[in-house]
């Protein structure tokens, strides 16, 4: 029996987080969530994105659904379905309360119109979806169950009846055709009798001057509330011309005020979690960036990510993004990154955290292949801008925050430390860095540490040293490549023509493109 696409069963369901921990800002996860949910505000997606999971069974349930939804066609089907149903439900929930009073104070033709609108949309969407799903097979348990659910629902007599009735009624309403004679203080309804249309007359005369440009000049009028009273009075007059149609409308509204299926409505919100993700990563994938479904584990024996990247940076500069690898084999669990400024060190640290976080949501992560650690929380310590005035205060603040971090940390926490002790002397920083490393080693949690202190990179067997690479040919340009090797760095000059790709060979190649 189908329950939800977020959780395999009611027993496995857990409450959603509604707030963001401090670490989100440091890791750009706040920007990521904002980006992903930006075009889909109505669905309240941030709550799903703020709720990481550490149960491999739920993650695998979601990964399977995400895989099925990779097909653009399947995405389109569900996206359209979800958008429409979600809207219809919002509209209809507003009407239901009022509908009880219909007829009490004169007929509200407008509300009746909304009921048939909603019913028609709802039936149409569900019928369409049933047809679209009929010959489709899904790999995931979640979507298979949903498809089965829809199939049964569509065949049910209750649904069949409302669907047929709404189709019949709409056809009759579309045939309604009349004229309004509008004067200064009165409006009359007049039967339509083949009167000629000015717009056509003008267009026929002047279209010969058209130079092939056909933009329309629709002036959008400022919204002016029409009077429901006048509208209803007009409809009352029109109802005299089309009596049978309007009687049928009344019957329809009485019968079908509440027939939406709750599980389907819930699905229409939740499926947007997957669609929003796929839509977001599409432009990155199109730019050639890899995404993969990670293996997830509670052990630190082997954790790795190949060709990973920071998604928020990739959003702005997909073509320039550099892919990096990380790999931790027991007993390794601390990565220390050193290298030139602006060389992509912090970006790498964020990429590490992002892949882990996204993996815990059950979604495909940036990278070609990955096995990720299931954390209980993510803790960050990002150094603040240097400020001579408050140097001592800042060092104290740094250490306080570090203590606070270590108090909260468990061996299952993911820890990101960025440019800590940047505001103190080198010798101080070395000593403090040693202390910090001792504590982190003892804690046993996975850590990424970005620093200018080379000594920290050689702390012991738990430590892996990674370095931001300098472009040998153009020392001014940054490569943003972070590789596993002892701390170092060197620069070389290079011929200027080469830099501008204007040597004979390079230019010939460019001209042949």
């Amino acid at each position, binding site marked *: 029996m189908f329950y939800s696409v977020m959780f395999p069963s009611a027993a496995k369901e857990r409450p959603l987080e509604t707030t963001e921990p401090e670490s989100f800002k440091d890791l750009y996860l706040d920007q990521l969530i904002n980006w992903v949910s930006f075009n889909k505000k109505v669905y309240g997606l941030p709550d799903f994105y703020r709720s990481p999971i550490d149960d491999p069974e739920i993650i695998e349930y979601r990964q399977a659904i995400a895989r099925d939804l990779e097909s653009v066609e399947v995405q389109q089907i569900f996206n359209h379905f979800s958008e429409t149903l979600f809207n219809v439900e919002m509209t209809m929930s507003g009407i239901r309360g009022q509908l009880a009073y219909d007829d009490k104070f004169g007929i509200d033709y407008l509300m*009746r*119109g*909304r009921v*048939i*609108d909603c019913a028609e949309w709802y039936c149409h969407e569900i019928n369409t979806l049933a047809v679209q799903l009929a010959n489709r097979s899904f790999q995931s348990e979640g979507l298979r169950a949903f498809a089965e659910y829809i199939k049964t629902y569509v065949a049910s007599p209750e649904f069949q009846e409302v669907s047929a009735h709404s189709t019949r009624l709409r056809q009759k*309403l*579309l045939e*309604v055709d*009349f*004229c*309004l*004679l*509008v*004067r200064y*203080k*009165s*409006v*009359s*309804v*007049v*039967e*339509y009798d083949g*009167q*000629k*249309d*000015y*717009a056509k007359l*003008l*267009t026929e*005369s*002047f279209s*010969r*001057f058209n*130079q*092939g440009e056909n933009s329309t*000049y*629709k*002036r959008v*009028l400022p919204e*002016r509330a*029409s*009077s429901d009273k*006048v*509208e209803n*009075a*007009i*409809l009352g*007059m*029109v109802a*005299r*011309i089309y009596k049978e149609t309007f009687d049928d409308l009344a019957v329809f509204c009485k019968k079908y005020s509440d027939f939406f299926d709750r599980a389907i409505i819930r699905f229409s919100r939740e499926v947007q979690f997957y669609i929003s993700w796929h839509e977001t990563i599409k432009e990155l994938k199109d730019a050639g960036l890899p995404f993969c479904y990670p293996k997830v584990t509670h052990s630190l024996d082997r954790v790795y990510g190949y060709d990973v990247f920071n998604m928020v940076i990739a959003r702005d500069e997909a073509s320039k993004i550099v892919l990096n690898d990380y790999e931790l084999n027991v007993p390794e669990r601390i990565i220390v990154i050193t290298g030139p400024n602006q060389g992509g060190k912090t970006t790498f640290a964020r990429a590490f955290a992002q892949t882990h976080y996204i993996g815990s949501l059950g979604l495909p992560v940036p990278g070609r292949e990955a096995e990720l650690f299931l954390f209980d929380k993510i803790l960050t310590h990002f150094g603040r801008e240097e400020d001579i005035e408050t140097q001592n205060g800042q060092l104290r603040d740094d250490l306080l925050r570090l203590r606070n971090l270590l108090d909260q940390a468990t061996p299952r926490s993911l820890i990101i430390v960025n440019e800590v002790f940047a505001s103190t002397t080198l010798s101080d920083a070395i000593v403090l860095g040693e202390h910090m490393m001792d504590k982190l080693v003892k804690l046993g949690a996975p850590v990424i540490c970005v620093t200018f202190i080379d000594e920290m990179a050689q702390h012991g067997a738990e430590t892996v040293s990674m370095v931001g690479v300098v472009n040998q040919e153009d020392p001014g340009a940054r490569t943003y490549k972070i590789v596993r090797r002892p701390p170092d760095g060197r620069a070389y000059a290079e011929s*200027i*023509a080469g*830099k*501008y790709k204007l*040597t*004979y060979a390079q*230019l*010939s190649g460019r*001209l042949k493109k």
Partner: protein
Amino acid sequence: MKVNLMYRDKHFDVNSDQYYDSDAIAFDVELKKIVDVMSRGDKEIAKACTAAMFTPLQTVEDIKYRQDNVNDALKHADLVRKLYDIVLQVQDKPENSMHWLSSSSNIANIFSHGVNLLKVYIETIAAMLKYAEDNKKTFTSDGFSGFVKMFLSEIDGKFVDEAKSHLKDLRDQDDMLIRAKLGPFNRCTGYVLVKKEKRGLFSRSKIVDTLTIKDDDIAGGSDLAARQEIALNETVTVLAQVAKHLYSFFTALRYELAFYIGAINLAEKLKEYGAPICIPEMLPITKWDRSWRGLYDVSLVITKSAAVTGNELDTKDKYLYIITGANQGGKSTFLRSFGQAQLMAQSGLFVGAEQYKAPIRNSMYTHFKREEDAFIRSGKLEEEMARMSTIADHITPGSLMIFNESFAATNEREGSEIHRQIVQALIENGVEVFAVSHQYTFAAAFLEDKKTQFLRAGRLEDGARTFKITPGVPLETAYGEDIYQELFVNRK
């Protein structure tokens, strides 16, 4: 109704900015002075002429079509100007901007504005109809005679009368008859203003009922006004559409005529200065022959208000032209005259020469030394390299590349090598290159190349400059030996 004065069967787009960095090219060959003479202060003429020169025609046939029209226009200058004036009457009317559409005034105002504008257009159409009838047989070119013929086949007196009658009806809108349907929420929708046929319509039988709004029902009153507005708005949409059609036709006509007015203006000026012009003979893009006689810098003639010395050339099968020689010897003037001629010729214009024959090129690129001294030496070279690299992103085989003292912001050995590699790569890939250079090492690298034409700025025996550019290999001025001699052999 297509104007087709610029192309046999294509719209002339003055806004197409397909050309890479046309501003820099116009600056390098001093096109602005020429365009100023063409436009005589009419910005739209300047726009049309610039667009035409930066949309180089690609076939001999297209060029021939336009050259014939240019000839016809020069022959009937007054009549072409008269047509342009008729068009200007409507184009210059204040109503004739589409601003009225977006204005915030009320819809009834906008509606009557639209109707008035149409009236003005119809008057202009009537004037053009008379012009066309008067000039049925004046023009001989396909462009101008075709235009007159097209106009007469589309427009007649009956059209003008009918259009006037529709407009008269539209002005009377105290009560409106609006056709409607039912839409979402059961609201009336799909409003269409329909013609009030007096017969039978207002008889009781067809009116179902009438709702009269009480004086104190403010919401009801404004509801009715809103309905009228919606119906008017629908009609305004159509009026706008119609006005836009007319506007686009007259705009197209204005810009296409503007090009020929520009040609007339320039030809008259050059004639006044005694400078010759000729319709060039254009060869297909596959050809590599060039010949000209009396080719001069048009912008220089305009500056001096007098004719200047021209240059001669007659070459076959060359892809590289290297111009060396004395400073102030007319090298830059020569490059400009040549660049101008190529742009003018491929727009279908005459050129500033007694005779001019050249192949068609995809497009033309210029890389001129920039005079700014703000750059330190290395920075300047970087700027030049960056500029060249951008050109390389755009240039295609079949293009023309003009260098003026490029890559000289470093020592000669380095600069020459950079220059040589770039030029070599260009010519091997089907780009024709003209290069003015002081770099002997660069020029000498092509001495054995049969498809390179060397030109030199002349200087007489006494050192006086001739301002003539004539065939001639580069000369290596050797001061080193002299100095060695002076300092070591003949030491004083």
